[in-house]
């Protein structure tokens, strides 16, 4: 018997997982990942087979940023580049004004040993199917604070409140959540050098300064680049381009000149309008510009503080009812605020 055979026999008496353990794990997993932003699966099935649900993109700030980074290397030759009139005149004015204001707003400067502190409040839709096939929907809120050290190779700290169920549209869903999440979520803290919260290999999950530097500050070139980076994703090239811009802005690390270029690029996207002049997000007021995605019935908004051009956050709003959620429900939103901290917890 050789060394490998001996090793293979070691602890080979350990049996498979008890079915009950696996079943419990599955329920837990599915509860946490099912999101109303794609729960269209149930509502869209009836008679609308050709309609894709909204793609699921809300998981965490990081995952999304990682996705944005990962598609960066893909170059597709035959990208359709809409050269239409772009946003409405009104939206273009809002965006161009915001660009002018934001470039004058000083970015936080992180000195050696200090941290960029990115506080966000995130709302996500959740959905679950119980053992009888009945579907429930609700909205969860999670507060997060990420501490990014001046030297990215140092340890990052990410405080998360866990997803707290906050909004219900029917009593059945509330009862379901009370039943399966009796104790509520637990807050937890993740740590990792270079943002590798999940171990080696998970480092590059947040836009690095070199990535941010690599993006063009020329609005047209930037938008063309975004079309290329998002090629093949989303329901439409224009919709996905705006989603990309919203995703990048909500990381909270975009420098002023790039923010300005992103706003101006958004002004070039056909279908972008002012969607809400008095938008309120998590108690903060701003102007929302956005674009309706007809094929999947949601609207992507970016909410901007007109006083300084800073992005307050972004949201996705239903343009037709979904399950128990009425038209106008924001099935996901994120607000973000970036400051500097001397220390991390």
């Amino acid at each position, binding site marked *: 018997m050789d*060394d490998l055979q001996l090793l293979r026999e070691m602890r080979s008496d350990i049996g498979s997982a008890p079915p009950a353990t*696996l079943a419990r794990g599955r329920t837990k997993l599915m509860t946490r*990942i099912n999101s109303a932003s794609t729960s269209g699966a149930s509502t869209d*099935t009836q008679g*609308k087979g050709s309609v894709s*649900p909204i793609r699921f993109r809300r998981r965490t700030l990081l995952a999304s940023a*990682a996705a944005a980074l990962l598609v960066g290397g893909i170059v597709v030759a035959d990208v359709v580049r809409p050269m239409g009139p772009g946003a409405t005149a009104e939206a273009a004015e809002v965006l161009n004004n915001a660009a002018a204001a934001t470039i004058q707003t000083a970015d936080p400067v992180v000195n050696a040993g200090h941290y960029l502190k990115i506080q966000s409040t995130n709302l996500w839709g959740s959905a679950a199917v119980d053992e009888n096939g009945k579907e429930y929907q609700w909205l969860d809120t999670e507060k997060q604070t990420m501490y990014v050290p001046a030297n990215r190779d140092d340890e990052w700290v990410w405080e998360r409140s866990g997803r707290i169920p906050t909004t219900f549209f029917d009593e059945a869903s509330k009862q379901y959540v009370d039943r399966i999440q009796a104790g509520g979520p637990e807050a937890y803290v993740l740590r990792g050098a270079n943002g590798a919260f999940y171990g*080696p290999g*998970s480092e590059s999950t947040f836009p690095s300064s070199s990535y941010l530097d690599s993006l063009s500050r020329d609005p047209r070139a930037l938008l063309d680049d975004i079309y290329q980076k998002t090629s093949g994703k989303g329901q439409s090239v224009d919709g996905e381009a705006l989603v990309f811009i919203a995703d990048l802005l909500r990381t909270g690390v975009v420098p002023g000149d790039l923010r300005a270029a992103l706003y101006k690029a958004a002004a070039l996207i056909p279908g972008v309008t002012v969607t809400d002049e008095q938008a309120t997000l998590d108690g903060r007021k701003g102007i929302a510009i956005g674009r309706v995605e007809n094929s999947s019935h949601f609207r992507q908004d970016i909410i901007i503080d007109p006083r300084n051009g800073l992005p307050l956050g972004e949201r996705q709003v239903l343009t037709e009812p979904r399950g128990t959620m009425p038209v106008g429900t924001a099935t996901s939103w994120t607000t973000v605020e970036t400051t500097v901290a001397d220390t991390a917890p």
Partner: protein
Amino acid sequence: MLREPFCGQRAIHSVSTDNEIIRRSRDSPEVFGELYDRHASVIYRYAARRAGDFAADDVTSETFLVAWEQLETYDLDREDARPWLFGIATNLLRRHHRAEAKVLKAAVKAASRESVADDSDRIAARVDAVVATGRIARTLKLMAAIDRETLLLYAWADLTYEGIAQAMDVPVGTVRSRLNRARRTLRTELRLEILDETENDHGRLAAAPRNA
């Protein structure tokens, strides 16, 4: 993102490859459960072998949650998601290094107890197996974590060199050198290397272990 007509359908029982499941779950989260159904039990067993049931419970559910959070980073050209999942599980198992050390320590202890107790009247094969296990456990315990992870992904998770390279995000050459190093240490500890040589030279077995 994707425009497949089946996005909204519940029929997810067709035979699909892992990458197909992952591609579809990006649009329809409920499909992701299929990946769990496929692989949760092997992840669990692997984790249980390394660090016991309690750790396995945690590592299994966390592995799939992390996989879900990193779904968009999955390389859709890869049909088999096991290397990816084992890679995540390997990282998560590091949180349970104390439990793993305990498991290995228990195996070492069991071996020394057995070899003393049955010294006079032993059932040779069984005792030797236990003794060998004790030596392996001790070697694993002393080995660099990264070598141990590589070795166990090979021997217990049945990943190929390429699979381990994907799981640990290192070149295949690195996997090969880590495996060589780990196996050399293991063989030295088991004295199998010496055995192999003496067997050829002398046509008989060297000392321990007898069941070699």
